[in-house]
């Protein structure tokens, strides 16, 4: 059993794999995502994931909502315009005292007038409007220190030889502990009709296409992505590529570009599926500073042990007090 709760490490050898292949992962470059949702569709098709409802959520083009038991890729759509920027400015200065610190500074004027030109007619810098549309395909992070895996009481969640985290459908008994343990809100228990819905009552999430990568194939979402926003490969290589991409973007003046989850010294030991973002993580619904809950578990056990001793001592004292 591994005792490594925290800090940088290579998860597959740490979990006991000998001769593990290089750690695999995703680099999702949101700056080139076009919001086509091919990743969502390809994932559903390949993994035979049931529908998660056909509702219109009123959140831009996002009618999927969030990652969940039946949504293993989720494309977020964020519309940013000067109207919301006014609110941003108030919020940013209240939060940080520095408007530019969050990288969302845009000093623009929106006349709010409809245009007679066709959208996209104007080209070049002059044709740009004040409106910014962020799109990002979210996925299970396959953490180095995975809270879901740590707390799973059946061993249904396991670490693969590729360093990814996968649920064994025939082992999981649907205790649901992994759900609140995930600092990213990824994994969930599938709701559906008993005996009808596939894997109803069982925890479900992205497997990084364990069945495909074992055969040397690319995961369905990355394969289907038409812009290479989703890149699959050896994590080391992806990290290098991501560094270069961020440097190039900074050189182009896009100072808001930043990597998310690539750092092996962060609170979850770095993630296997990391991102290039153009705004703060919480704008995309991601936690700004996630920490695996298990980091604090040794202290929790110590406190629980002390509390148990206190209770035992209290009971002994209650009887030692004498009297009827």
């Amino acid at each position, binding site marked *: 059993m591994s005792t490594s709760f925290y800090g940088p490490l290579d998860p597959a050898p740490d979990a006991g794999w000998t001769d593990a292949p290089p750690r695999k992962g995703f680099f999702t470059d949101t700056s080139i995502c076009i919001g086509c949702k091919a990743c969502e569709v390809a994932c559903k098709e390949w993994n035979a994931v049931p529908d998660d409802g056909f509702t219109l959520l009123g959140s831009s083009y996002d009618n999927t909502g*969030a990652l969940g038991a039946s949504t293993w890729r989720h494309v977020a759509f964020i519309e940013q315009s000067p109207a919301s920027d006014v609110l*941003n400015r108030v919020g940013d200065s209240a939060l940080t005292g520095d408007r530019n610190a969050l990288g969302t500074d845009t000093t623009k004027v929106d006349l709010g007038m409809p245009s007679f030109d066709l959208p996209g007619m104007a080209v070049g810098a002059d044709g740009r409007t004040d409106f910014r549309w962020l799109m990002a395909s979210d996925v299970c992070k396959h953490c180095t220190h995975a809270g879901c895996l740590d707390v799973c009481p059946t061993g249904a969640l396991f670490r693969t030889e590729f360093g990814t985290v996968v649920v064994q459908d025939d082992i999981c008994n649907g205790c649901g502990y992994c759900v609140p*343990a995930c600092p990213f809100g990824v994994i969930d228990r599938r709701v559906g009709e008993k005996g009808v819905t596939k894997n109803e009552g069982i925890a479900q999430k992205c497997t990084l296409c364990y069945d495909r990568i074992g055969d040397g194939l690319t995961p369905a979402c990355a394969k289907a992505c038409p812009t290479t926003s989703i890149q699959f490969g050896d994590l080391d290589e992806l990290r290098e590529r991501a560094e270069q991409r961020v440097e190039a973007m900074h050189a182009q003046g896009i100072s808001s570009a930043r990597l998310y989850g690539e750092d092996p010294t962060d609170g979850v030991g770095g993630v296997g599926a990391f991102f290039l973002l153009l705004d703060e993580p919480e704008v995309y*619904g991601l936690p*700004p500073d996630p920490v695996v809950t298990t980091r604090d578990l040794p202290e929790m056990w110590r406190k629980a042990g002390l509390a148990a001793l206190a209770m035992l001592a209290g009971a002994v004292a209650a009887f030692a007090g004498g009297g*009827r």
Partner: protein
Amino acid sequence: MSGEPGTRRRKGGGGREHGEQPMVPPAEFTSYYGRPVVKASPWEHDIPAYLFMGGVAAGSSLLSAGADLTDRPVLRRTGRIGALVGLTLSMLALVKDLGRPERFHHMLRVAKPTSPMSVGTWILTLYGPFAGLAGTAELLPPRLRRTLPGRLLGWSARPAGLTAAVVAPAVASYTAVLLTNTATPTWHAAHRHLPFVFVGSASAASGGLGLLAAPLSEASPARRLAVAGAVLELAVERHMEAGMGITAEPLHDGHAGTLMRASKALTAAGAVGAVLGRRSRLLSAVSGAALMAGSACLRFGVFEAGQASARDPRYTVVPQRERVEQHGRTRSV
């Protein structure tokens, strides 16, 4: 809920009770359409019900073992039967809450110290048979006691009851770790204190059961355990909230807030009644019932508060953002 993504919203700080000062100024934060960042547990009311009943069972095992050794037959009987009933209902609740109840035994495949639920499974596996044996011995009809199995059961009741009592405190305290070892903001933020709150609550509830059922001539130890538990629970809970920042808010707001206020009132009243009712069977019994109700409210209140904290992205984002502003991003090395 703001419909505008990537915008900052202020959640009204005006709803605070008793004119308390907010522990931190209301913070601005960004979310994605106000949707949660972390997921609330899929657990239903079976889980807080288990927290309560498991606590009653644990404390009752301690009381019945002591009563057995100090010749208090009614308190012993109450404790053993209380533990048996609490344990049985706990098991039913735990299995019912599974997504696949028929696979409950998959819990026994592994033993994982990193999983409080796995540790709890093994604690209950150790505790259950002994508590069950002692409880069954009390319930055995007199005509069966003379049979060989009946005599064996009667003979094993004391060692079984004592063994259950040794494991019982772990039953009462591990459930705190079960909740706090999650990304649920209000639960995790309570991790240094919740085990003490929970053993206090278990002591108060089981002592309360003793006061409810045992005559005055036998009730002193139950009274002392109940009052000590209630004081521990109330004092540590107060201290706990003071150190939780904004994640303490869900313990005051909404349904969870109502439950927590009810818990404090019932527990305090029950403790006072237990002290004053030393010579009154009726006041002792009423106080015992109040302490049990207070414990149940506490478990449901803490559970609901955690669920509410997970559903509002504010409680995930703001503490993390503040941490980053003050100390920079979390780094392990």
